[in-house]
Each structure stands twice: as structure tokens, then as C-alpha cells.
């Protein structure tokens, strides 16, 4: 599903390049659940953003479902991304001005899905996550765990093949964190490929693979 070849990313600092990622080679198959680990500054988030097509690499090739992402135009990339990728953030990043329902609905709007269809899809998702009673609340009226649940619901609404999560439990207490990880496990079983960035060994354990990054290089994979 995903194939990275010689991916490098750097910034120019005082005229010299500072590498964030250096020569990353990586293959992830459909249905895998991968955890990326590593100390702060090792390039975990950058790698995830490149995988999620939110950021470009300076060098190297990225193939996503046999499409050369690195050479696609913004519009085509956005098309792939909209259809196949969902994103979950540590800080949830819900839109404060929209209700729970509307937040979940937004990705569908950008895919030009018709109103009736949207209603059905959102209703299903809300049912599934057991948040029917909260659908008209605004994000600020929810607890962190509930907000992240909405964030995941929103990420899943367009039925993505790949779910990317950037420390999804980082702002949650351990009980909420466990619930979210169980949900991920469940989703993975249903066939969603998941890549998560995490600090926690325990959370990394939920995955089938762990990739350890250090100073922009893959240190080991298991």
C-alpha cells in the first residue's frame, strides 16, 4: 500500500541543511497497524505528515496504492488523500464553531456527497460511537476523551483505507487512552490500515509493527 524510497527532508539553517529525515525506506502493507516511536525531534511527526501528504519530502519517492504521490499535482494528491486517508491529532483539532454532527459531516461536504447520503453516513457513525446525545453540542462542551472520539469519527466518516494518528492519546488520561487504543485495534481488525506516532511503549504494543526513529533515520523495525 505504502512504499517510501530514499525519503529525505531537511531545513536550511544558516546555509547548511539540517536533516529531519534521512534516507527513509519503508513499506507498509494494507491491513497493518504500525507504531512509529522515537525521542522528541527524531522526525516521527514529519514522517507521519509526509505519509499523510500534508508535507512534501525534499528527496525520494512515495508510492501510495501504486500512485507516485511525489510527482502528483496538488489537486490529484488532494483527491487521493480525501478518499483514502483519515487523520487523528493529539490536540483533536475539532472546529470550535461547528457542532459534533457538523464536524463529522465536514469531510463529506468536501467530497461533494449529497445531503441525504451525508445524513445517513453521519447518523451511522454517531450511532456506532455512541454519541447520539452529544451530536448538537460544540467541542468545548465535551471532555478530552469525547473530543478525541469525535475526531476519530470524523477521520473515519469518509471510509478511509489509511488512518494516521499523531499521538492520539497524548492529551488523555490512561483510561480514556485505553479506550481509544481498543477502538483502533477494533478498526484495524475491520481492515483499516493504521499508522500511529506514540511515545508510549504500551500503546505501541497494540500495533503489529514498531518503527523506531532516531535523528531522522530508521533505527530498527520489528
Amino acid at each position, binding site marked *: 500500500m505504502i512504499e517510501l524510497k530514499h525519503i529525505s527532508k531537511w531545513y536550511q539553517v544558516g546555509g547548511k541543511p539540517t536533516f529531519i529525515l534521512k534516507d527513509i525506506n519503508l513499506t507498509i502493507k494494507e491491513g497493518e497497524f504500525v507504531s512509529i516511536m522515537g525521542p522528541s525531534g527524531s522526525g516521527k*511527526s514529519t514522517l507521519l*505528515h509526509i505519509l*499523510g501528504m*500534508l*508535507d512534501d519530502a525534499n528527496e525520494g519517492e512515495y508510492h501510495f496504492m501504486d500512485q507516485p504521490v511525489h510527482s502528483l499535482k496538488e*489537486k490529484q494528491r*488532494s483527491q487521493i*488523500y*480525501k478518499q483514502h486517508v483519515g*487523520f487523528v*491529532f493529539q490536540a483533536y*483539532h*475539532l*472546529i*470550535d*464553531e*461547528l457542532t459534533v454532527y*457538523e464536524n463529522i459531516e*465536514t*469531510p463529506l*461536504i*468536501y*467530497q*461533494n456527497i449529497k445531503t441525504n447520503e451525508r445524513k445517513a453516513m453521519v447518523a451511522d457513525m454517531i450511532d456506532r460511537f455512541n454519541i447520539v446525545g452529544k451530536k448538537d453540542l460544540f467541542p468545548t462542551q465535551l471532555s478530552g476523551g469525547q473530543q478525541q472520539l469525535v475526531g476519530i469519527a*470524523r477521520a473515519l466518516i*469518509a471510509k478511509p483505507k489509511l488512518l494516521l494518528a499523531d499521538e492520539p492519546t497524548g492529551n488523555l488520561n490512561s483510561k480514556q487512552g485505553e479506550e481509544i487504543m481498543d477502538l483502533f485495534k477494533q478498526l484495524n481488525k475491520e481492515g483499516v490500515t493504521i499508522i500511529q506516532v506514540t511515545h508510549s511503549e504500551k500503546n505501541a504494543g497494540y500495533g503489529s509493527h514498531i518503527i523506531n526513529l532516531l535523528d531522522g533515520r530508521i533505527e530498527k523495525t520489528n
Partner: protein
Amino acid sequence: MLKNYLKIALRNLWKSKGFSAINIIGLAIGLATCLLIMLFVLDELSYDRYNKKADRIYRVDGDIKFGGNHFILAVAPDPMGATLKKDYPQVEQYVRFRGQGGLLLKKGNENVQEDKVIYADSTLFDVFTLPMLDGDPQTALQAPNSLVITATTALKYFNTTQAVGRTMLVNNRDNYKITAVIKDIPAQSHFNFDFFVSMATLEESRRNNWVSNNFNTYVVLKEGSDPKKLEAQFDALIDKYVGPAVKQIMSIDMAEFKKAGNYEKQYLTPLTSIHLHSDKTGELAPNSNIQYVYIFSAIAFFILLIACVNFMNLSTARSANRAREVGVRKVLGSLKANLVKQFLTESILISCMALVLALGLTFIMLPTFNHLAAKEIKLDLLSNPWLLPALLLMVLITGLLAGSYPAFYLSSFKPIQVIKGKLAAGFKTSWLRSGLVVFQFAISIILIIATIVIYKQLNFIQSHKTGFNREQVLVIHSTSPLGSKAKTFREEVVKISGVENATMTGYLPTNGWRNDNPVFADPTLDQKKAVSMQTWDVDEQYISTLGMELVTGRNFSKEFLTDSSAIIINEAAAKMYGFTEPIGKNLYYLRDINTRSASVLHVIGIVKDFNFTSFRQQVTPLALLMGENAGNTAIRINSKNIPHLVTQIENLYNKMAPGEPFDYTFMDEDFNNLYRTEQRMGVIAISFSALAILIACLGLFGLAAYAAEQRTKEIGIRKVLGATVSNITAMLSKDFLKLVVVAAVIAFPLAWWFMHSWLQDFAYRTNISWWVFIMAGVVAAFIAVFTVSFQTIRAALMNPVKSLRNE
């Protein structure tokens, strides 16, 4: 999708109410001002368009240089119209107007003075579109002593608009017959009369005099004919007809006339350009000036631009708050185009709200504006079919203009950066925003300077020595009905206590009659040495009553019997003749052009130049001759109880002329009337400047709030390090002050240039002193600091622990 955009737009507006209010109010004031000016400009541009043949009607105007004088005339010789129609087939019809002052009419037993009177040819209705309520347009103005009146006038005198066949007693002498009643003339007309008297009534209209220009002459050209082609033949026409007349009067032919540096040109002025472009001698009424249309249009444009700039500035300043939303939306699959559309929807929504508010504001401001501008503009969305679409277009353009920059700016954020919390554009780094603030303040400073200069000039007009004393002078108009008793009236008036002096004359510096004649310097009547000048018949009390000053020589006096042939000239005339020792010199005044008999006048004095036209023109040569002229009586008074004094004079008048209307003004009022346009425009300019500054301040207020917000952390750290509230306030204000200084540097030369050109219109004008600039700069800086201080002090007072905690 649109529903979603609108929903989030509304919620966003509601969430940041202060910001929204500033935006909407600022835009609303801008739009309202724009709308007012739009209505004003459209009103000005619509003059005379009610005429069905408006595009084919031209006035025959003249440009004559003769005897050192230059006349630009709105009038032509009496045979001009008929000759044009006879000689040139492209002239379909002509009509002439001749103003001869007002008429005294009888309404019941009461005498009423009517001033909106004009003599007009019977062809009036072939040229102008003046719909008739009663009567026949073909014959109405044919017979002498025929009278066409407007509906309002008919109602006033006869209580009906079906007044044809009735008669009116005119000047207590003649019976005029009402031959037609027309609808009232639209306000957007360069002439506005209540009475049209048939031209046949006037003997003067048949004199065939080619050298006297007294008739406003209009021609209608046949459809498709080129006015330029007709104009090109005017020179030949003048040679053919004016030439012989010149020969007869001055015994020189046209070639010699021209060789002496004289010329006479006639040309065509399109009817539709008279109201805004014509300020000539002999206009039917004072016209407006295209300059004001340009100035106001520019002001409207800039005010709206300032309001739009506010919008852009506030939106981008607020981008920090919107950036995260943009990032998330992009992550959720939004394209840049989606976001641009979203933000544009938002700004158009805001401008729609602003429009609703603006309509309300316009409705409230319109009466005041009408009062200021002396207009009767109505805000009627239904009767003006163009208004609503134009407004919607204006809103759309405003929305797009104001929203486009924020939309493109915000939507271009890289999602990854904003989600990570790194916002590239801080307040200080945005040169564009600074540029926009500079722009706003530059315009505000220009407007402040313009306002000060306009006021300075108005003040100058008020305080400038006019050469006569207009204070405490009562002018009684038309003392001519007193007839031979006018002199007795003057003598009786002087006896009333509180009256210092009185003079009897039709010629006054502020208004009244004018009489232009060539006065020759030698007995051969060599026209090369002629000076064309005002020659006024006055009595010996004239100079003392009006407080004029003699430079040299003496005033007229009863003691000198020879004073009937004495002349007092002004300094301008003396200079024109080149006299070094003028007293005792003889001048020759043509009494009758046909017999070429001249009377010899000896100069007894030089009067200091006094202004008898507006300050826009230099004082031209003028001569005072001793004579009896009962046109007006000017009375110098010195009394605390003016109403009582006026009543005493009125009683005396009524005793001597029973039933005649007692009509008076004060000379200083007459004087102010000369500058009413300037005063009106001054007040309007000040109001608009104030509005522009208000809008700019609203924007600055909002901007300061966000600047303070963005620098919360910096302020917190500085406070922890020991900065005081005043340190912080100064630091934040300094950034804005710098912008004001830059704005001032840009504004000063521009403002100087604008106002310098405006002042060129006045022959007598104030100067633009350096303190005007200093004052404008200080005012702008003060306004800026005052506006910003609300926010900066608040930010400086904040508890640093609070602002640093969430970092």
C-alpha cells in the same frame, strides 16, 4: 455547501462580536457615505436630461475680447437665433431667453414681487420639454403681453391649474393674459422660472443689434447633425453680421478690430453640460461645478476604500484565530478554492449586513445632507430602478474587494504549520498591513488638511478687506416704485434715529445691477485706448454710506455744479489707463452708439479697489458717475434694536408707497450668499472628512486590539522583567505612531498640491501655511494614539502570569 459556509460565517461573526461590529459599522458608514454621494452625483449629472431633445440642444455662447476686457458670455446678440435658423439648415429651431428682473403682480389687493420671471420666444415648447396642463404650446407665447405660468403659480394665484384666459395686472400698469399653464419645472434644470412672458412684449428683442449680447439663445440641431460643423461656420457669420455693426459704431472694419487684439467668437455649449461646466457672464442662474462632482466622487471612493482596508486589515490580523480552522479544514480535504469561497461568502455576508445598516444610516442622514447640499434627494428604492441593482453590485464588489485579500491570505496557510502552532505572520512582520494603515492615515491627513484649508479660505473671505463696509447696512430693494419720491424717502430715512447715512442707487457691490461700457481716454474715441468698465450711477452719499475709501481726490459734492460731468474711477481703472496723475484728466463716455456723441467726464477722485464680484475674480475697472438712480436704497444703521429700526423704515416706506411690497436684505447676508457654494461644500467636506477619520479609527482600534493580543506573551515577559505599564503602552503606541509619521510624509505633498490647485480658483486667496501641515499631523497622531491607547493600556495592565501560563 453554501449553507455550511453561511452557518459558519454567522457563528464566527457572533463569536467575535466586537470584531464583527467594528467591521460592519465601518463598512456601513463607508457604504452610507458612498450611497449619499452617489445620489448627489447622479442628481447633478441628471440636470436638463428631462428634455426629450437634450442631446441636440445647444446654447450659443460668446467669447469676446474688446478694449482690454475679456467677456465669456452665456448670452448672444438678439438676431443670433433667427439668423442661425435662417442661414443653416441643420438648425431645427431656436429659442431666446431674456431676463429683465422681476414683475410686480397684484394678488387681490396685495402687491407681490415675483422674481422667477423670464421673457421667452414662442418657440420655447419646440425646444424644451415643458408639458402643458392647459393651453396650446404653438400659440401660447406669440402675442405680446402673454404669460405662461407653472402649476404651483397658477394654484397660488387662481386656485386652479386651468387658468388660461385669466389676466394679471403687471407693474400696476399692464394686463397680461395667461395663455398656458405648464407643469412645474423639474429641480434638475439649469433654469427655474415661474413666469414666461412672451418675447414679443419686449421691444429690445427686435432691435437687430449685433453688438449687444443680452439673449440666452438655444438652438436644436436636426437629428444626426454635427455641432462642430456648425461651429466652424461661426467665424464667417460674425464677419458677415457683426462686422458691419462694428464698422458703424467704431468706424473700423473687422480686420482692424482684430488687428487691435480684439476678437469675437461664438460657440455652442451642449445643454447637458451647462449645469456642471458653465460659469459665464449672463447665466440664467448660478450653476454648479463639475469639480465638486469629481471631488465628492473621489471622497466616496476613498471612504469606501478605507472601509475595505479596515476589513482586510482586521481579517488578516485575526488570521491567527482562523488559521487553525483553515489547517483542520485542509486536513479534512478542503481545497484552497473551497476556503477562498468560504471566506468570500463570509465577507459578502458582512457587506450585506453593512448594506442594511447603511440604508438605515442614509435614511437618517439624508435630511441633513439635503439641507447641507441644498438638494431634494430622496432615497426611494422602488422609484429608481437602477438603485437596487447598483447597490447590490456595490455590496458584491465591496465584499469581494474587502474579502479577497484575507481569503487568499488565509487559505494559503500550510496546514502542517498552523496545526503545529507555528504561525508565520506575526503582527510586526506584515508589511502589507502596515502599508494599508499608512494608506488610510495618508487619506485621513489629506482630508484634514483639505478641511483646514477650505476653512481658512472661507475665513479669509470673511475677514479680507473688501474695500467697503458691509456690516450694519440695510438694503431696501426696488425703491423705484417710489418714483420721484425716492429722494424724499432717502432724506426722511436719514432723519430716523439710528440711521447714520443712506444712499440711493441700483448698483451695489454685493448684488444689484451691473452696467458695462467702454470709456475712452481721448476725444477721437480711439478704441485702442478704451477701457471697458462698470459705470455706476450713484449719489454723493454712496462712498460714505458704504464705507469706501478715496485714495486721492475728492467725492462728488452738491457744491460743485460741474460734478454732473465728474467721474471717480477705481485703482484698477487708473492702472489700466496708465495714469500717473489721474486727477483732472478727461475721459469720454459714449452716450449713444448711433450718433457717436460722447460726453466728457473729468476725473475727480480714485476710489480704492473694492470687490464687486466674487473673490474668484480680480477687481476689474469701475467708474462712479453722479446720477439719480432709485433702484435700491442702502442704509447704514447703528442701532442695538435693529427690528425696531426696520419697522420704522418699513412704516415710512408704506406711507410713501402704499400697497408696495417692502423688500429688504442685510448687505452682509448678500455678501455671504456669494460664497454659499463654498460654505456648503466646506461643511460637506468637513462632514465627510470626519466620517473617513472615524472609519479609519475604527479600523485602528480593532488592529490595536489584535496587535496587543498577538504580543501578549512578549508583554508578559517584559512585565516579569520589570517593565511598567507606561513602558508597555509607549512600546505598543510607538509602532502605530511610526505609521502615522510615514503617512504624513506621503500625505503632505499630495495635500499641498490638491489644495494649491483648488485655491487657484480664487483671485483672492489665503496661503497654505506650514502650521496647517503640523496641525493635521498632530491631529492624526493624537487620534491614532488616543484610539490605540484603549487597547494598549488594557494589554499592559494584564497579569503576566495569566498570559504566560499556557505557553
